[in-house]
Structure formats: structure tokens, C-alpha cells
């Protein structure tokens, strides 16, 4: 048994006029950052159609730098379509077409001649289900940079990307083992590391935690919170609590329309639109 008197508490050494209560320090969050006026992505009256069906209709949205913007809404409301429009992933969907404008750093990404491949390097994507390549952990991270002709030290790049994805400590001794040996949460962080290795500016995340358990989800959410100091994050999620926890801005979509965009704090305490209110309180339909 430990006698507490063996280790008596150290008397305070503060000056007599020091405040009685210490305010605990906390990890700085992007919410502590000054307001971002820098826009990375801006959609202007954007309509995305699959054939004649408008999955996103007349949407105008601004994505500020170094912030997490969450897009929420019921299934089929067009949130993933809007997300995929941001790096032209919809180009791979047959019959998909876009009207209106979507600007990345002021340049309309749907103008003829725009380099969509370079765009996808600058705007990376993380999908719903972790989708590592059937290769080693190392090759998963290094592959994208290698085929893009990366001239630097690949090992350093891999380590840096894995550290930023909060996975390095767990995999540093088994870099050449199969990525499939990792847990679901680790695989998802590997996919984030893979995206980061291409040194993007924006990370698009399409329900990145929907296949993960609560602990793995918490780790990804912590990671998103860290990443936003270096990257701009756009997150599609079905989980409203997750949007509330990790995002700075929230956009609510319904039936292809962007109903309301505001600070997350406002959306979840006093939304301006009745449909937003009904959706977040679960009274929808």
C-alpha cells in the first residue's frame, strides 16, 4: 500500500498574488485561429446532373482556408456529388455534367482545358471505406509521390505523411508489411497519409468514419482537428454529432439544394431555416 504521506504535496511556489485557480492549458484548435477570409474553393450557382437528373441544383458555397467545412443532409441530397465536384471526381461518372462555376483559387475548374489531374493532386480525397492498395504500408504512401516524379527523399516523405496522419508510431516497425494487416481505423489513417503525401492543399473526406468503430472514429476526428492547421478540409458526414464536433462551418443540403450554410455553432444552436432545424432535431419528413 502506498502511504500518501510518503509523497507529500509540494507547497505552491507562486507569488502571493498569483491567481488561486490555474486555467488548464489545452491543445490549440483551429477554432482558436483568427477568422479566415481566404477562400480556397467557391461554387457559384453550380448544378451537377446525372443525365437529366439534377443531383445538385444551383448551389453557391464558399470553402475558407484552414477550416473544416461539413456538408450534412439526408441520403440522396447531393452532398457527396457536391464534394466530388470539387476535384472533378464526377468526371468518372457516365452522363455526369456540370453547369455554373466552381473556382479553385479563383480558377474555374470546369473551364475547357483545365488540368483535372493536377487539380486532384492539390485536392485529395478520402473515401467512406478505407481503400489501401494491396501493397505494403510504405508503398501505399510512397506510390502517388513516386509516379508523380517526386524528386526528394521518399523515406522522409513517407515518415512525414504517416506522422501527420498520426499513424507513424503504430507502423514505423512494420512499414514493409501489407497494409491489409492494419485495422480499419489504421487503414483509414493510412489513406489520409497517402493523400497527404501528395502535398495537397485541400482534403475532401466522404464519410471517412462511417465504417469505423467509436474509438477509431475519435482518432480520425482528432486527426482532422490537427490537419486543419495545414490543410483545408471538406467533410461529408451522416453523423451530425461528428459535424458538430469537428467542423467550423456546416452546410445543410436537401433534395439537391444547398439550404443553409453558416458557422457550425449557429447551425446547431439556432439554425436560420426551418428545414435545417427539422433535420438536425430529427423531425425531418
Amino acid at each position, binding site marked *: 500500500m502506498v502511504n500518501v504521506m510518503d509523497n507529500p504535496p509540494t507547497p505552491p511556489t507562486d507569488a502571493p498574488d498569483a491567481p488561486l485557480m490555474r486555467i488548464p492549458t489545452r491543445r490549440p484548435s483551429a477554432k482558436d485561429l483568427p477568422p479566415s477570409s481566404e477562400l480556397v474553393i467557391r461554387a457559384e450557382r453550380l448544378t451537377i446532373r446525372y443525365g437529366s437528373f439534377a443531383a445538385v441544383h444551383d448551389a453557391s458555397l464558399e470553402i475558407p482556408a484552414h477550416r473544416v467545412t461539413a456538408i450534412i443532409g439526408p441520403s440522396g441530397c447531393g452532398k457527396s456529388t457536391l464534394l466530388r465536384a470539387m476535384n472533378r471526381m464526377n468526371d468518372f461518372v457516365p452522363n455526369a455534367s456540370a453547369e455554373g462555376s466552381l473556382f479553385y483559387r479563383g480558377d474555374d475548374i470546369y473551364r475547357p482545358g483545365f488540368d483535372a489531374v493536377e487539380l486532384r493532386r492539390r485536392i485529395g480525397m478520402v473515401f467512406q471505406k478505407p481503400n489501401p492498395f494491396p501493397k505494403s504500408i510504405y508503398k501505399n504512401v510512397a506510390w502517388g509521390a513516386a509516379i508523380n516524379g517526386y524528386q526528394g527523399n521518399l523515406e522522409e516523405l513517407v515518415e512525414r505523411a504517416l506522422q501527420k496522419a498520426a499513424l507513424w508510431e503504430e507502423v514505423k516497425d512494420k512499414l514493409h508489411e501489407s497494409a491489409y494487416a492494419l485495422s480499419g481505423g489504421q487503414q483509414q489513417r493510412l489513406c489520409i497519409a497517402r493523400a497527404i503525401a501528395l502535398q495537397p492543399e485541400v482534403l475532401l473526406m466522404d464519410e471517412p468514419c462511417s465504417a469505423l468503430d467509436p474509438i477509431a472514429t475519435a482518432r480520425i476526428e482528432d486527426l482532422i482537428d490537427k490537419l486543419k492547421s495545414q490543410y483545408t478540409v471538406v467533410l461529408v458526414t451522416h453523423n451530425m454529432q461528428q459535424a458538430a464536433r469537428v467542423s467550423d462551418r456546416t452546410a445543410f443540403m436537401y433534395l439537391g439544394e444547398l439550404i443553409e450554410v453558416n458557422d457550425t455553432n449557429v447551425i446547431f444552436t439556432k439554425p436560420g431555416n426551418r428545414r435545417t432545424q427539422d433535420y438536425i*432535431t430529427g423531425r425531418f419528413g
Partner: protein
Amino acid sequence: MTAHFVDLLDDLRRRSLRMAGLVEEVVKQACEAVFQADPEMAKRVVQRDADVDAEEVEVECEVIRLLALYQPVGSDLRLLCTVLKVNNDLERIADCAVNVAERAKHVDARTLVGPYEDLRQMGPLVEHMLHNAVKAYGSQAVNDAEKVLSEEDAVDALYGQIIRRLVAEASASPAKIASFLDVLSVAKNLERIADHATNIAEDVVFVCTGEIVRHRTH
């Protein structure tokens, strides 16, 4: 699950309103006890305070349970926060009513004509404010709540007048100091009840609009 949560919220709101009705009744009885010098009524007020205390704890537990289990947002979150705050105000109002009732056997109307008359005006005014605050809380009507906010100044003015008169009379009749203190105590507690009624009205504005209107000059 959502329909179930909505039912639970409705139950909680009804329960909080029942408590508000009980507290309103207790305040009315406390004023009667003082102004009609009715010690039996005063005793009933003191006894009913235990019911209010028990109900306050029950309502608080239910709010905490709903927050923990359902993580509400938007208007549901505002409602739960408001129920919790109003719950606290109601319990404090009942305590003030007990303080008023406990002075019933002491306040001597015959010897304190001036301040006592002001006190007689203050009682119904405070009852009226509380009634309107509870009504606004029940109907969640911003207009009704704003009327309550506009009435606070009249109560404060009467309270100030009572103090000025007491100070003037106390220096002229120091032998009556105990009675003066009783009147002061009743006036102070009525003024506190008016403050709590104002808090409830402010919380009604919050639950309806999301705006926090506390600490603004009306």
C-alpha cells in the same frame, strides 16, 4: 426514437410548467399570509417548499438524462437549457416566498403606514409579473415575455421608494427598527421574485429566438 424523444420533451415541459404553477400559487399564498396576517397560510407556504425542492431535483435529473442520452441540438437544446435555468429560478422564487411568509407574524401594518402601503402595491405587481412570465413560458410567446421585461422597472422603483421611506422613518422612530427590517425583508424578497420572473422571461426569448437578452438595458 425521435418521436419518443419529442414525447419525453413534451412530458418534461409539462412537468416544468406544473412546477411553475405550483410556485406561482406559493407566491400568492405568501403575499396573502403577509398582507392578511395569516400565520396558518404562512405555515402552508413553508410546507409546500419541500414539494418544490423535490420537484426541482426531479426535473434537473430528467434534463441531465435527456442531454446525456439524446444529445439534442437546435431548438431542443435551447428548450432543455431553458428548462434547467427556469427550474433553478422557480426553486429560488419558492425560497423567497418562504422568506416572505416567515415575516407574516411580524409585519405590523398599523405602525408602518407609508412603506407598508408601497409593499401592498408591490405584492400584486410581482404576482402579476410572475404570472405573465409563467404564461409566456407556457406559450413560448416572445411578446408576452417582453411585457414582463418592461414591468421590472416599476417593481424596482417601488422597492427604492420603500427603502427611502424606511430610512426616513427609522431615523424618526428607532424603536420600530425590528418592524422596519421585516418590511425591508419582505420588500427585498418580492424584488428578488421579480428578478427571477425577469430571468424566466429572458429565457423564453432565448428558447424562441436563440438570442440571449440578459444584461441589456430594457
